[in-house]
C-alpha cells in the first residue's frame, strides 16, 4: 500500500546516517589521545558513488563482469581520514572541527526528527478524520 513510502523512507535513511555520524564523532572525541588513531567520517553512499563515478569509471566489456559498485543496504559509509597527522603520536583528531561537526549534526538530526514527526502527524490526522 505504500503508506510509509517516499519522503518518510528518505527521512528514515537520513536519520540512520545522522546517528551513525554522531557515533563516529563521539568515537573521534573519545580517541583524542589515542596514539596512531585516525579520525573517522560518515558520508552518504550515493555521494561517494557520484564522486567515484566522476573520477574513474570502470569498464565492463562483458555482461557477466562483476559490477564495480556493489549494492549494500546501508545508505552511508564510514571512511577513515588517513592522510593527515596533527600530533606527534600519529593522531589526527581536531577537537574544534569535531565539535563544530557535532553541533551541525545535532541541528540536522533534530530537524529531521521534527519533520518525520510532522509526516506521521499528518497521516494520523487524515486517518482519524480530524477527530
Amino acid at each position: 500500500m505504500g503508506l510509509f513510502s517516499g519522503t518518510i523512507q528518505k527521512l528514515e535513511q537520513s536519520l540512520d546516517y545522522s546517528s551513525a555520524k554522531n557515533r563516529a564523532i563521539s568515537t573521534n572525541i573519545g580517541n583524542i589521545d589515542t596514539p596512531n588513531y585516525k579520525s573517522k567520517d560518515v558520508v552518504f553512499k550515493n555521494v561517494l558513488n557520484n564522486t567515484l563515478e566522476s573520477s574513474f569509471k570502470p569498464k565492463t566489456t562483458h555482461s557477466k563482469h562483476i559490477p564495480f559498485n556493489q549494492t549494500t543496504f546501508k545508505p552511508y559509509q564510514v571512511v577513515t581520514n588517513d592522510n593527515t597527522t596533527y600530533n606527534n603520536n600519529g593522531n589526527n583528531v581536531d577537537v574544534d572541527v569535531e565539535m563544530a561537526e557535532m553541533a551541525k549534526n545535532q541541528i540536522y538530526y533534530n530537524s529531521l526528527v521534527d519533520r518525520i514527526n510532522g509526516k506521521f502527524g499528518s497521516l494520523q490526522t487524515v486517518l482519524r478524520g480530524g477527530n
Partner: protein
Amino acid sequence: MSTLFSNISQVNPTQQMIGNAPITPKEAQTNFADTLKGAIENLNNVQLESDKATEALAAGNIDDLHNVMITAQKSSITLEATVQIQKKVIDAYNEIMRMQV
C-alpha cells in the same frame, strides 16, 4: 486564507445571484464540485512542495532551515483545514438526511 481556498467565494450563492439571472442547479453543482476539486488540488500541491523541501533538507542542500519548517507547517495547517471542512460537510449532509420532509 486566500491561498488556502482561493476560490471559496464561488460557493457563496448570494454573490452570484446579485445582478444576473439565478443559476441553475446544475451550474451550482458544477461550481461546488470545481471548488472542492480546486481545494484538494491546492492541498496536494502544498504537500508536494513540503515533501520537496523536506527531501532537500535530508540531502543537505538547503540554505535556510526556517523555510523548510514554514513550508511544512503551511502544508500541515492546510491539511488540517481540509479535514475539518470535510467533517463539517459530512455533518451537514447527515443533518439534511435526518430532516423531516
